[in-house]
């Protein structure tokens, strides 16, 4: 019997070593270890037919063979497993391969700028307002301290639907007139929107343009608040290190009036073409809401005060996204994909 066991061991070991894959190895295991018909199993069953002394010797030998084969099976299994992993790795994979951006939708550049500005002002307690593009003389001019024949009205070349009576708003300030009439102070609004003027169209002037305006009215609001709010906005939108300059400037809607400049980033204030050699770029017009405007809205200027500001947003959008022609911005010329 020992001879038989030895033969089985050698035969099995040879088969185990030659097994090329896990399935073949499994077949070998079944061939020798299967409960019903495995070769080793059959021989070990015959142990019971031996005498007691023979049982001890042959039994010990049989167990050694069994263990040897089991160990061999296990280590061959591991070897075959690792080999398989190695084989799988034969495919050449390059981690640096450039990817293709999945299809996505993109916001219009002006929306992105408006949203950023809105977020800044929302954190300062402002709400967002909107209003009609078709306006009347009353809200576009009269309530903004621009009576007929006011010299400043020349600068507003108006597009009329009906003269007089109905026009396309020349600035988003018309919405300020409506806000003053509709809401009781205190209130704070920002107003992103489109406006229209009679212009000779070229790369930097369009009939339609966008503006970003704002107004805050209440009791005890002063130029110090105007400075603080606009400073915060400029630093949050243009960068923490930006410098601002608040100087006296005239607009019919405000008194005192303020022009807000920021330092020219292109030349570090040394003077260049962009800032017309002034070192500063005009960014916003602002000031304290003119008492006439408050009176026309039945608000007592002795009790209430407020500040307002406005800026042209197209130039900011074009600078940020490096678009050189305003007609492309609103002409559907932007390539998205």
């Amino acid at each position, binding site marked *: 019997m020992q001879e038989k066991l030895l033969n089985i061991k050698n035969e099995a070991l040879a088969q185990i070593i030659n097994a090329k894959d896990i399935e073949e190895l499994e077949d070998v295991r079944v061939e020798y270890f299967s409960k019903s018909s495995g070769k080793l199993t059959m021989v070990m069953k015959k142990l019971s037919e031996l005498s007691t002394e023979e049982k001890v010797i042959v039994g010990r030998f049989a167990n050694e063979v069994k263990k040897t084969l089991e160990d061999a099976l296990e280590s061959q299994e591991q070897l075959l497993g690792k080999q398989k992993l190695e084989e799988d790795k034969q495919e050449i994979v390059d981690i640096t391969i450039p990817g293709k951006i999945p299809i996505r939708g993109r916001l*219009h550049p002006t929306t992105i700028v408006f949203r950023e500005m809105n977020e800044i002002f929302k954190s300062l307690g402002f709400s967002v307002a909107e209003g009609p593009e078709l306006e009347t003389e009353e809200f576009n001019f009269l309530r903004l301290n621009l009576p007929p024949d006011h010299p400043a009205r020349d600068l507003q070349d108006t597009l009329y*639907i009906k003269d007089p009576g109905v026009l396309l708003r020349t600035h988003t300030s018309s919405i300020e007139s409506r806000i003053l009439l509709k809401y009781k102070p205190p209130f704070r609004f920002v107003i992103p929107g489109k406006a229209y003027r009679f212009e000779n169209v070229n790369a930097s002037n369009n*009939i339609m343009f966008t503006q970003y305006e704002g107004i805050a009215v209440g009791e005890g609001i002063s130029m110090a*608040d105007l*400075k603080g709010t606009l400073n915060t906005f400029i630093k949050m939108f243009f960068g923490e290190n930006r410098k601002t300059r*608040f*100087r006296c400037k005239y607009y019919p809607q405000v008194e005192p009036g303020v022009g807000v400049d920021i330092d020219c980033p292109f030349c570090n204030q040394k003077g260049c073409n962009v800032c017309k050699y002034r070192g500063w770029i005009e960014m916003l017009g602002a000031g304290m809401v003119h008492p006439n405007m408050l009176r026309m809205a039945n608000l007592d200027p002795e009790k209430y005060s407020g500040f307002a500001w406005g800026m042209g947003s197209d130039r900011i959008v074009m600078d940020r996204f490096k678009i050189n022609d305003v007609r492309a911005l609103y002409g559907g010329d932007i390539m998205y*994909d």
Partner: protein
Amino acid sequence: MVYPLSWLSEYVKLPTLDKDLTDRLTMMGHMLDKRIQHGKEIIIDLELRGNRPDLLGITGLAREIHAYFEYSLKLPPTKKLPPINKSSNLVKVKAPELLERFMAFPLFVKVKASPNWLKKKLEYYGIPSINNVVDITNYVMLETGEPMHAFDISKLSGKSLILRRARNGELFTPFHGQTVPLTIDDLVISDLKTPQGLTIIGSKHSGVTYDTTSIILEAAVYKYANVRRTARRLGIRTEAGTRHEKILDTNFIQFSLERAYYLLEELADAKPSDGTFDFYPNLNKPKTIIVKISDIERLTGTEISITTAKSILERLGCQVIFKKGVLEVETPTFRTDLIESADLIEEIIRIYGYERIPTRQLAGEIPSIQTSSNLLLEEKIRDSLINLHINEIKTSSIIADTDYINFAQTTNYFPPVKIINPPDVNMSTLRPSLLINLVSAAVKALNFRQTETRLFEIGKIFYQDKPDKYMEVNKAGFVIAKIPQEKNDRTIQPNIAILNGVVSGLFEDLGIEYDIVSGGCHPSLDTKIQGEIRSKNNQILGSVGLLHPWIQQIIKSPVSIFAAELNIEEILNIYKSSTGSYSIYPPYPPIVEDISFEINKDSQIGIALAAVKKSSDIISKVEVVDIFQNSRTIRITYLHPEKSLSDKDISPIRQKILEILKNKFDLKPRVQS
């Protein structure tokens, strides 16, 4: 306006460094536009505020410098005018409604060349030297800001002036430029026969020359709006006109004439030949404005002492009395821009220095947020469409008239809203639909070799509901177009499925249930291939469909374009807040079955599937999985939350579905699997 520093320094001392001067002037409201240097000569060009005509004379700026730097102001010498002659025949005013004041007096003069210093000063402004008399009128205008004119009396028919309206068509020849026709809106300074001057420019005929021996010297303040209209209509721009278009001070012209008189006596041996004519019906008295001390800090947020405030106003030419918590301020008449307290507070703070205003964050109660629900909904729609891979465009509300005509193929569009004075006469229509610009942009993208374009816009459309009743409505629109994989593939249905997929995603994000019903009357969509998006209570939320083939042809689109336009207001009525629902993986496996059938031209598969889905609680999903010619395959997913389903559970439901499809919708299944 340009200011040569050497001339300016005749009236006030200047800081040593011109940068210190211009930096301060910029802060005070007169921004430095350019600095020009010729050798030692420095000239500054300032951008002036529109309401400060007093700065259009160099002495006006000198006063500003005196107000801040406190160097003494040296006004130039003047000579008192001859006494007023109330019965003077020198001037007849026939159009008093166009004048505020007209002063004139006659002089004997010796006309010769101007001295060099005078010529040089005019050169800074590009004004040519003519002779001493003409040059003095220009010089005084530059010095004081008040235009004035001298007429040669001997060249005036009647040796006097008449101020009247022109006759329609009456001709006038300015001393430089072409003859122009006038209207009755134009004020002329005329002799007995012909106009000798307009408010903005004198004539060729009656100007002062070397053989002139007597003149009428005049200065006036006209109604500025009228001057502006004349200047604009005739297209004539002059130094005088620029000043007359602003609100000038009637009081001040006296000072200017006195200055001119002084110079004429010095340089032209001038002697008066009669008294002064003065038409001045409304005496301009200085006004008194009350400024509450408390308002200074309330508005500027800056603590300024009463002494400082008073002293600033006095240096600007005001008379100030402090009593009982207010400043009683009598403003100089040449400051026509100072009307009320806020104007004076600006004066105080701008001379004090805006850079000294502290910075403070808006304090106080944060007002309740009042962003309109319409804007919030628009942002939601925007985000949803971006997530559905549609790109946003923003376009003008004004469209080309031909675009309007191309799109208004049917008569279903309301009359459009039109601009009556467009800069480009071919672009005078306001868009009645967002699809016009969207389609245009889509075609542009395809022509620029994009294989696919998906665009949306949220904005306003316009139309006339009734004559003169102008409507402005918020809409959202999107278009999808693609170049097909196979060149001649013109099938429409798969693209409709894509279009509806976007609609589906959007409304799922908004938490709104809807049906698409075939039919509808959007004027720019194919009459047979469009549908209405209807809410569960039958509100029309929008339209979807194929762009009308006539339009596709006219605009030369290479492929079919699929479009939708949504009514934001109707959506707003239903929209509560996005719900959207999420579920967890089902514990029990579903059973999935496909059914194919042929459709016919009246099939409305969307409605059929909605009915199928409703037919049993354990149908969790019904979707279209294949579109091939006229065959459709739908996939039905059966799912029970508490047990594994078997064919026994499914079989009766399947039967019901087949019946519904056959009997209610005339859809006969071809194959069952």
